[in-house]
């Protein structure tokens, strides 16, 4: 068809007004560059904050809660089955948080197709002895290798080596906040008292910084064996099994399934961090809103220049129509002008956006709470670039559509008679 001719005419009209065209294109370039930068940066931030929680939170956590037995004896009795039984002041039965038969459970879980990996854990409530005062806190007994593999444990050990927990007997990695309070350095020995009154000396082999100050003020890490010793428990004692799944979205269902299957309590990540998604969503919405707002402004720029062009080119439009161009052809010419401003503007915008994000990616950023972050976080994703391009094409098409419609309706008789 006469696509080539229409593009040719569009090009000539564009070049004849290249200054205004350039300004309009720069508007698009600017907005697309900002759009890409914002989205990459905001998503980078989201990833970072997600990582802060998600990396370190098990998808499913199995544990044994100390709580009243729901099957009180009277309910089990046949005689009173049909009665309403009111029981007051029910007390928790048994007081062990231990997961019974945990070796068998872990073996079964390891064979479960849906499980990526798991790591056992013991939580011990302790007092750090600091001269006359004691600081309450907790020691987490962990298996260093699996904890590192699944929950990036070593990333959060800011000084010292995570593996020393295993290699050095009776060692501990103190939370940074705890260490500050105890004035403890690596190589020092700290005294720890368990809730049962046992006292133990542990050698500090590193510091731990989770990024959440409240956590670092109370938590420390030791090996499973050391923690068992600390609590005076046998080496089968485990209080938690932390599971990472292949598919995060299965967590709620699997948590229920495992709880029933292994007769333990369970918690899934969605329930544990339900408020978390909200922050990410808000940031994403902000990025899109700002990007689209900028694009709309750029769209008005294009709308203006096209209107001006059409006003100036009335004569040309009239003669084109007189010599056989249809209204549709004229409309196509002006839409082609608009789209090419949009396309080239957006293309440059994508490039500038990319350059800007790489620059931001180099800017040093060392938040005290986030030891793994060294520069501003940027998320690179081709999706943003595709969305940016599509948005700009749509906006410029709409910006061009109405002026083009107007141009196609120009009556050559009116113009020619007016001369």
């Amino acid at each position, binding site marked *: 068809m006469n696509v080539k001719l229409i593009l040719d005419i569009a090009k000539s009209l564009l070049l*004849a007004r290249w200054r205004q065209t350039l300004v309009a294109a720069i508007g698009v370039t600017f907005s697309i560059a900002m759009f890409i930068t914002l989205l990459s940066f905001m998503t980078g931030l989201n990833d970072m904050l997600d990582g802060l929680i998600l990396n370190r939170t098990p998808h499913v956590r199995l544990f044994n809660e100390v709580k009243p037995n729901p099957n009180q004896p009277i309910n089990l009795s046949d005689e009173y089955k049909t009665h309403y039984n009111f029981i007051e002041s029910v007390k928790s039965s048994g007081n062990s948080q231990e997961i019974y038969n945990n070796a068998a459970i872990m073996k079964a879980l390891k064979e479960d197709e849906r499980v990526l990996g798991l790591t056992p854990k013991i939580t011990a409530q302790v007092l750090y002895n600091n001269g006359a005062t004691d600081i309450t806190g907790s020691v987490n007994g962990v298996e260093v290798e699996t904890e590192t593999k699944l929950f990036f444990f070593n990333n959060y050990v800011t000084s010292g080596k995570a593996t020393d927990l295993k290699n050095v007997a009776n060692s501990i990695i103190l939370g940074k906040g705890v260490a500050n309070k105890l004035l403890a350095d690596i190589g020092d020995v700290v005294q720890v008292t368990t809730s049962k009154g046992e006292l133990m000396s542990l050698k500090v082999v590193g510091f731990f910084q989770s990024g959440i100050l409240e956590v670092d003020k109370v938590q420390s890490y030791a090996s499973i064996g050391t923690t068992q010793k600390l609590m005076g428990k046998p080496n089968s004692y485990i209080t938690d099994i932390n599971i990472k799944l292949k598919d995060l979205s299965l967590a709620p269902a699997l948590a229920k399934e495992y709880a029933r299957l292994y007769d333990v309590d369970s918690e899934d990540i969605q329930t544990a961090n339900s408020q978390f998604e909200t922050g990410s969503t808000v940031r994403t919405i902000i990025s899109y809103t700002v990007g689209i707002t900028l694009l709309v402004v750029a769209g008005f720029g294009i709308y203006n220049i096209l209107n001006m062009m059409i006003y100036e080119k009335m004569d040309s439009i009239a003669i084109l129509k*007189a010599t056989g*161009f249809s*209204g549709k052809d004229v409309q196509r010419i002006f839409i082609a002008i608009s789209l090419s401003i949009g396309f080239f503007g957006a293309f440059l915008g994508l490039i500038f956006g990319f350059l800007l994000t790489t620059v931001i990616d180099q800017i040093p950023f060392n938040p005290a709470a986030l030891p793994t972050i060294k520069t501003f976080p940027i998320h690179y994703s081709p999706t943003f670039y595709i969305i940016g391009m599509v948005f700009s094409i749509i906006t410029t098409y709409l910006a061009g559509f109405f002026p083009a419609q107007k141009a196609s309706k120009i009556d050559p008789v009116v113009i020619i008679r007016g001369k």
Partner: protein
Amino acid sequence: MSEIVLQANNISKSFHDPITVKVLNDINFSITKGEFVSVIGKSGCGKSTLLYILSTMDTDYEGELLIDNQNMRNKKEGQLARVRSEKIGFVFQFHYLLNEFTVLKNVMLAGLKLGKYDAKEVEHRAMEKLKILGIESEAYKKANQLSGGQKQRVAIARALINDPLIIMGDEPTGNLDKKNSEMVFDIFKELSDVYNQTLLVVTHDQSFAGNTQRIIEMEDGRIISDEKAFIR
């Protein structure tokens, strides 16, 4: 009998703004192939209005218009554009050249739009037309670098590009001085005599009209006389 190129049957037109005025009243005539016709009449008698209707650009009229024996009534905008592209060439008082393009490209545009020949052939033909009008040396200049007379000749070349059935002109010499007017007339005469081109030209210029083969005279929206001139 030679074939009829254009036929107007009972064409009337009224403007309704601000009050209803009938500017064309029952116009009937036909033009056969090869005729060189001029339309004269007092200012405001409806010559331009008639020409815009005959050129298919104005569709708001009563009566019938046949071009190449096809009724123009009920044709869509796109189809009418096609008719103009294929069958009608225009020369107006003002040249309406596109300043963004070279002279050659200005002539070529309508040819490229029709798409009967490929771009190379259209260019070749455009050059031929410019040669007929004696301005092939200006082909690569921008349209706005030409003199008034030259521009009008480019406009004529543009009208010729698709070998139209009929060329219509609305005071094509109206903006030109005597010398240039004569030159444009000579070109029309040559097109008529040498190429057997059909021409319908509205003019105020008595000597121009006097030299054409047939003069249609209008007054108050009617044709008052339609006679073949004796001078050849």
